[in-house]
């Protein structure tokens, strides 16, 4: 369950930023999670629930922004969306592609009360 360590890191980052901004609670946190990042969203929200008790993220709404996976074919240059790491290029059928996005794991923003 690496989602637990991921949740810990998210809390760390949020704690850092709220301390800097001098706010005590967060209304909403936006996370960008690539669809190929290897993170189970259910496991992550569960882990966040557990680790954020009595912290600055307690009760915070978690908004997950899916980042779709995109790749560029190494033989024909086609850029395409992929659902998994082993989809062939839709234009030429080659498997050699370079992932352009979809592995993101980022805290995008915190929304706090004024």
């Amino acid at each position, binding site marked *: *369950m*690496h989602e*637990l*360590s*991921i*949740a*810990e*890191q*998210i809390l*760390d*980052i*949020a704690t850092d*930023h709220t301390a800097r*901004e001098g706010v005590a*609670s967060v*209304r*909403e946190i936006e*996370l960008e999670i690539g669809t*190929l*990042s*290897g993170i189970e969203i259910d496991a992550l929200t569960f*882990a966040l629930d*557990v*680790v954020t*008790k*009595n912290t600055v993220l*307690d*009760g*915070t*709404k978690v908004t997950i922004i899916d980042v779709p996976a995109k790749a560029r074919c190494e033989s024909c240059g086609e850029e395409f969306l992929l659902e*998994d*790491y*082993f989809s*062939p290029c839709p234009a030429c059928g080659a*498997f*050699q592609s370079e*992932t352009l996005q979809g592995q993101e*794991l*980022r*805290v*995008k*923003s*915190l*929304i*706090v*009360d*004024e």
Partner: protein
Amino acid sequence: MCDTCGCTQPDDAVTIRKAGEEHHHHDHAHDHDHAHDHAHAHDHEGRSIAVETDILQKNNLLAERNRGYFLAKNILALNLVSSPGSGKTSLLERTIRELGGGLPVAVIEGDQQTMNDANRIREAGAPVVQVNTGNGCHLDSDMVLRAVRELQPEENSVLMIENVGNLVCPSLFDLGEARRVVIMSVTEGEDKPLKYPNMFRSSQVCVINKIDLLPHLDYDLEKAKEYALQVNHHLRFIEVSVKSGEGMDAWLTWLRDEVAAAKA
């Protein structure tokens, strides 16, 4: 809850110890109270704070520090990952014995609970430190840093890091290694690379172990490689039987070549 390993109980604190050492130091206390006290959102507009930070930033930064240290000391660090029982420890034991001190090898053993693997490595003749992750399902760069401080690997050596047997979680955590080696055994089914693509995608070498068992199995070696190449076409394969010794030459040659390349 523990910052480094994400474990949930005090008994599961990460411990780092040398093989043969009885005591272990717990690095951090886990003391949390889990009272529920939900904050309530208000209706008016909030203010947005742009964070734009990689969630793995801390691990990645520390991994780069480890990498710099290994580079400066000319230590070739390998991260060995696989599902449980593919033969990581067996491969290390045989590697240490066959090298016979010609190329110094030190080992960091990651395991949730036991000292067994570290004891096996010590018997094979290499300095070893065991990291017990408790409930943690992977090593991270901080655990490796702490283990390295305990281990003090010599310059111009190879540092083998045996990760926790798990094909999912370790894939996200850079340890500062030069190469990631995924070990797959022929008893596991050809579709492992498709089921755990992140791990095969992030590795550079795939050791296919237990080939001595091929005559007794329906395992389709070519199919397995084909699947792995679909996930990562840069992957290079080394087929071995740690048991019979077949293919060990190719593995040791690869290892020596990597050491030589690191020096150049």
